[in-house]
């Protein structure tokens, strides 16, 4: 059962990621990234992280990807064109990526002492998570809220149309 769930959702994950690379239109890439993120949420659930699974769907698949698709549609992004740069990146990038993957995979395969995951493993409840978050890590949490506030202000300041200032300057 566990194996089936893992294979199905890991397969979906990989298929979505490969599709993101192969598609030439940004909106198709965005939709396949949503597939990757929702299947990752299921994998989090299999690993017993229920809060993170919910947060993954709400924050990533919900908020961030809606922002992405919104920007793709707003800017009317079309198909990307093949250029000299993309050919060079393919020629140099693919071997480098394969070497990196081989290195990481060797380290993981050689690692000892890794446990096994089963369906009967306990899940980390949101209560446990928030107990640690709000008792021991309260300061980082509050700093994050300031960070998000600064990001909102920065996004508004950057994306705001500067037409008014230009006509005012003239």
């Amino acid at each position, binding site marked *: 059962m566990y*194996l089936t769930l893992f294979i199905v959702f890991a397969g979906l994950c990989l298929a979505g990621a490969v599709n993101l690379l192969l598609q030439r239109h940004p909106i198709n890439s965005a939709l396949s990234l949503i597939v990757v993120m929702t299947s990752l949420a299921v994998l989090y659930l299999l690993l017993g992280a229920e809060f993170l699974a919910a947060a993954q769907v709400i924050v990533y698949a919900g908020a961030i990807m809606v922002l992405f698709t919104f920007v793709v549609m707003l800017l009317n992004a079309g198909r990307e064109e093949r250029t000299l740069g993309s050919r060079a990146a393919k020629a140099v990038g693919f071997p480098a990526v394969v070497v990196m*993957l081989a290195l990481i995979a060797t380290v993981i395969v050689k690692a000892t002492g890794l446990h096994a995951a089963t369906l009967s493993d306990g899940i980390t409840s949101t209560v446990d998570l928030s107990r640690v978050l709000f008792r021991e890590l309260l300061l980082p949490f509050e700093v994050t809220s300031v960070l998000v506030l600064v990001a909102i202000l920065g996004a508004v300041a950057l994306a705001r149309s500067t037409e008014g200032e230009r006509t005012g300057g003239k």
Partner: protein
Amino acid sequence: MIPLSWYLLLSAVLFCLGVAGFLIKRNLITVFMSIELMLNAVNLSFVTFAHQWHAVKGQIFVFFVMMVAAAEAAVGLAIIIAVFRVRQTLAVDRIDLMKL
């Protein structure tokens, strides 16, 4: 029942696909999406190690990564909109000057 190294391998493959996308893709938004894919891959290995050592703090780290990713996406997309407004293009090969 499966060994946790499978999760780590999946995470490594996703990360490398993200790196490949970052190198190959020629669209500013798709390059940005590849960065999100890499962040997700790292999150998966965080959750796996949190499961391995029964450490709640590993999951809280993922929570913080999500928050930072949300902030990064908001600011990054705002920058993309600002660049597009000046250059009228999203191709990374055409956006090669710091000067507007």
